């Protein structure tokens, strides 16, 4: 039985580093040579194909059934591969992608407002604060157009104009209308599209679906990812699954903060366990705090609810101009309101990107001008739009969001402004992948929010759905062939291979250990304490002292977890407390790497705001000379600091520039 490791790492001075050139060549992004435009077409023209009869001989595991995993599993099966797909929910249709509200970007230029592949590419690179890989982003912008076509053909009921054409809206960080949407339920409709394609393949036998089945660990044999160990959450059964290649599409790690807009079950387990088996974790400190969420109500709270960013198209954000102004919003005259986004960023106004808007809200609250019981909120006001457009139109555009707001807060936002506050929403960091979407571990591919690839240090609204579907439908199904072709005649190891058996035993042992502790604190209590610490020290703003404090506290909390955890029941049937404990145990390790990353990056960029690095008027100060690289961390085992690998970022098509939205 293996015991979990406690990495008692002291706050580090400077992490050891090697850069890509010296790191056994491990961090080669494998981006194609030549100009970006046309690079993906050239790649596809030259890539080695696997003949259809041979595809049937390859088993591929896809962990995740969200936009990325669902699309990939369906498409790989259509191509002829034998696919096994896993999700922790009781149905693939419930993956967290279902919750996305606002929309999906595509460079269709249907509005004839000057959009193009290059402009979407440029906006994404700039929005990401010049911390993403050009070649990947260009490809993303290019295939964005195919996504819309594919989804329309599946029957996704996108919003339409009276003439029957597809409608668009604008979204934060862009000056064109390129966002496609289906009321306030875009993620749901896109996911149901992918789910329907997946369902069809399940019916044909091309995909074996394993619902309520959680990946516990990755099986690596001779340096290649060759399978996974899973636990059936309904029955507790531990299973071993072998495959020629493994694809992780397991979403983001926002729940490391405990409170976030993510679903309760979202976890870092799959990616973290793969990391422990050798996959590098890239840029874990890049997390996105969404500016428009419903403020925290009390300490019983289990999650935060997003109010779609699309609301900022018609809502105006403001805070009282005077400190401690406790008057009701309607009693505060125009002249005593501070429409701070319009004031500070006149050209983008209320549509300033997320990181900037969130920080501006924090600034107002830190300044004592926050609203609501705890002073942690600002107003999002629709009064002007209602006057201009009439309530019916506002209702048509945002009715479901206003209803959602009323259900949670009991307040009517047609009559008084919404109270909003930033909340953790998305994680740009993830497992490191190359242009083929393969991690440094051969055979392990990572797609969707689980990888680090396309959004740099900040993601623009409506770009995650785009990336998930791009990866799943249009990129991975090609690029995985590169690996599989090279694996050619190699035999698939059996489930009783000693490596596989060892991983399986480790998974069982870990769960048994948690059950045996019989201490006093529940998984939820540990999770909440970790979350508060991370929000405080590694949240919207970070500094050296705070991060060092967190790096001291996390190992203590982890140690306490393994000594004082209480999980009732058994491993042999449905046991939610055990599922939760298992996920928390991984957050307790992952959080530390996140803080290492935040501490080592001595600059401010996108969602990573280091208080020491800001301009006089509080804007982020990037340091391109020293930090224009991807930080990819290697797990070094028990009691060791993670090891930093760098992938330098080169910008050929866009010029590194100060990101201004003024």
């Amino acid at each position: 039985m293996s015991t979990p490791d406690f990495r008692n790492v002291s706050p580090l001075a400077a992490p050891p580093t090697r850069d890509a050139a010296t790191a056994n060549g491990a961090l080669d992004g494998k981006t194609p040579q030549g100009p970006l435009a046309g690079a993906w077409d050239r790649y596809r023209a030259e890539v080695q194909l696997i003949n259809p009869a041979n595809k049937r001989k390859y088993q591929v595991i896809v962990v995740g059934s969200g936009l990325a995993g669902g699309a990939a599993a369906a498409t790989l099966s259509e191509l002829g591969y034998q696919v096994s797909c896993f999700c922790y929910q009781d149905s693939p249709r419930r993956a967290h992608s279902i919750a996305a509200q606002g929309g999906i970007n595509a460079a269709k230029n249907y509005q004839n407002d000057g959009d193009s592949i290059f402009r979407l590419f440029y906006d994404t690179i700039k929005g990401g604060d010049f911390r993403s890989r050009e070649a990947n982003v260009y490809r993303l912008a290019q295939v964005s157009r195919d996504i819309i076509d594919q989804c329309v053909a599946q029957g996704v009921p996108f919003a339409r104009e009276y003439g029957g054409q597809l409608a668009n809206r604008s979204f934060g960080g862009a000056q064109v209308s390129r966002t496609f949407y289906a009321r306030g339920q875009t993620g749901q409709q896109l996911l149901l599209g992918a789910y329907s394609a997946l369902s069809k393949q399940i019916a044909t036998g091309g995909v074996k679906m394993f619902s309520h089945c959680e990946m516990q660990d990755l099986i690596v044999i001779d340096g290649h990812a060759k399978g996974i160990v899973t636990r059936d959450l309904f029955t507790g059964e531990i299973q071993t699954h072998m495959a020629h290649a493994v694809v992780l599409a397991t979403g983001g790690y926002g729940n490391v903060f405990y409170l976030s807009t993510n679903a309760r079950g979202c976890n870092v387990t799959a990616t973290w366990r793969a990391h422990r088996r050798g996959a590098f974790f890239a840029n874990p400190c890049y997390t996105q705090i969404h500016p428009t969420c419903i403020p925290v109500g009390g300490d019983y709270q289990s999650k935060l609810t997003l109010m779609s960013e699309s609301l900022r198209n018609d809502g105006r954000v403001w805070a009282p101009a005077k400190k401690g102004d406790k008057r009701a919003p309607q009693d505060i005259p125009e002249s005593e309101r501070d429409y701070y986004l319009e004031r500070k960023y006149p050209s983008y106004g209320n549509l300033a990107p997320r990181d900037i808007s969130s920080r501006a809200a924090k600034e107002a609250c830190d300044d004592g001008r926050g609203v609501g019981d705890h002073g942690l909120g600002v107003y999002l006001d629709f009064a002007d739009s209602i006057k201009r457009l009439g309530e019916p139109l506002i209702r048509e555009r945002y009715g479901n969001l206003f209803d959602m707001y009323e259900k949670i807060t009991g307040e009517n936002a047609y009559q008084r402004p919404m109270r909003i506050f930033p909340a953790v929403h998305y994680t740009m960091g993830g497992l490191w992948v190359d242009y083929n979407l393969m991690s440094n571990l051969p055979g392990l591919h990572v797609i969707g929010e689980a990888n680090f690839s396309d959004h740099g240090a900040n993601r623009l609204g409506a770009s995650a759905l785009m990336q998930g579907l791009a990866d799943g439908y249009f990129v991975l199904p090609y690029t995985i062939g590169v690996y599989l072709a090279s694996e050619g005649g190699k035999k698939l190891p059996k489930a009783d291979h000693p490596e596989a058996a060892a991983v399986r035993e480790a998974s069982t042992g870990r769960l048994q250990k948690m059950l045996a502790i019989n201490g006093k604190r529940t998984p939820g209590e540990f999770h909440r304490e970790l979350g508060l610490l991370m929000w405080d020290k590694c949240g919207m703003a970070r500094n050296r002292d705070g991060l060092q404090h967190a790096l001291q506290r996390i190992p203590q909390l982890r140690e306490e977890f393994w000594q004082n955890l209480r999980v009732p029941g058994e491993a042999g049937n449905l046991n939610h407390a055990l599922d939760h404990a298992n996920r928390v145990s991984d957050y307790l390790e992952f959080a530390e790497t996140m803080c290492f990353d935040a501490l080592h990056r001595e600059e401010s960029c996108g969602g990573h705001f280091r208080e020491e690095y800001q301009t006089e008027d509080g804007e982020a100060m990037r340091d391109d000379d020293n930090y224009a690289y991807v930080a990819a961390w290697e797990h070094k085992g028990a009691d060791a600091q993670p090891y930093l690998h760098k992938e330098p970022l080169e910008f050929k098509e866009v010029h590194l520039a100060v990101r201004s939205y003024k």
Partner: protein
Amino acid sequence: MNLTLKVWRQKDSKSPGRIETYAAKNIPESASFLEMLDIVNEDIMHAGGEPIMFESDCREGICGTCSMVINGYAHGGQRGTTVCQLHMRHFKDGDELTIEPWRAAAFPVVRDLVVNRSGLDRIIQSGGYVSVRTGSAVDGNALPVPKKNSDLAMDAAQCIGCGACVAACKNGSAMLFLSAKVGHLGLLPQGQPERHRRVLNMVRQHDQEGFGNCTNQYECEAVCPKEISSTFITRLNRDYAVASARELLGAV
């Protein structure tokens, strides 16, 4: 506020279940119903017991995971609301609440309030899709759809697949669920080529899964958190009749 909960506890699908009583103490009004259960579960665990198993994920009314019957109403009886969106301000201090799982022949209990709804997935697998291979689609705007149809299709497509319609139906029928998918795809040009085969296959799968017949009581519509209209069932019946007739003529 303080409440008394009478909760269905059942160890697994084979064991018999029973109602047990719990006190929910010091519950804030602004908490959601599931947060109230979280608080009760923390208390149970601290007292050395096993928490009440209930499912939830998004906790904002869109994933369709949460599922329980409160005082006889699937999702608790608030119009257009899933149980995760239900807030305690709708209850009073001293209330007694009975909480049970979805009850239907086609939804075996897994544990406590958790049931197995995989039958709904298999209904979709039998035909709830448009067959279009990835990469083979034409330009999105090459296929105009009248706004009215598209909006109506969206009304149906909003179904979250929670199964409340089945739980509310005395026959355990999943007709509202089924009709929502058939209606969504049937209203769009993309759904036409497979329209007849789809409805026949899906209805057959529905029956095979052990879901009951629809006898037009429309309890389903009343509890549907997405307020999907029973007119989609009428539409389904029409489609089914046409498809059956065509099948007899060998034209499906």
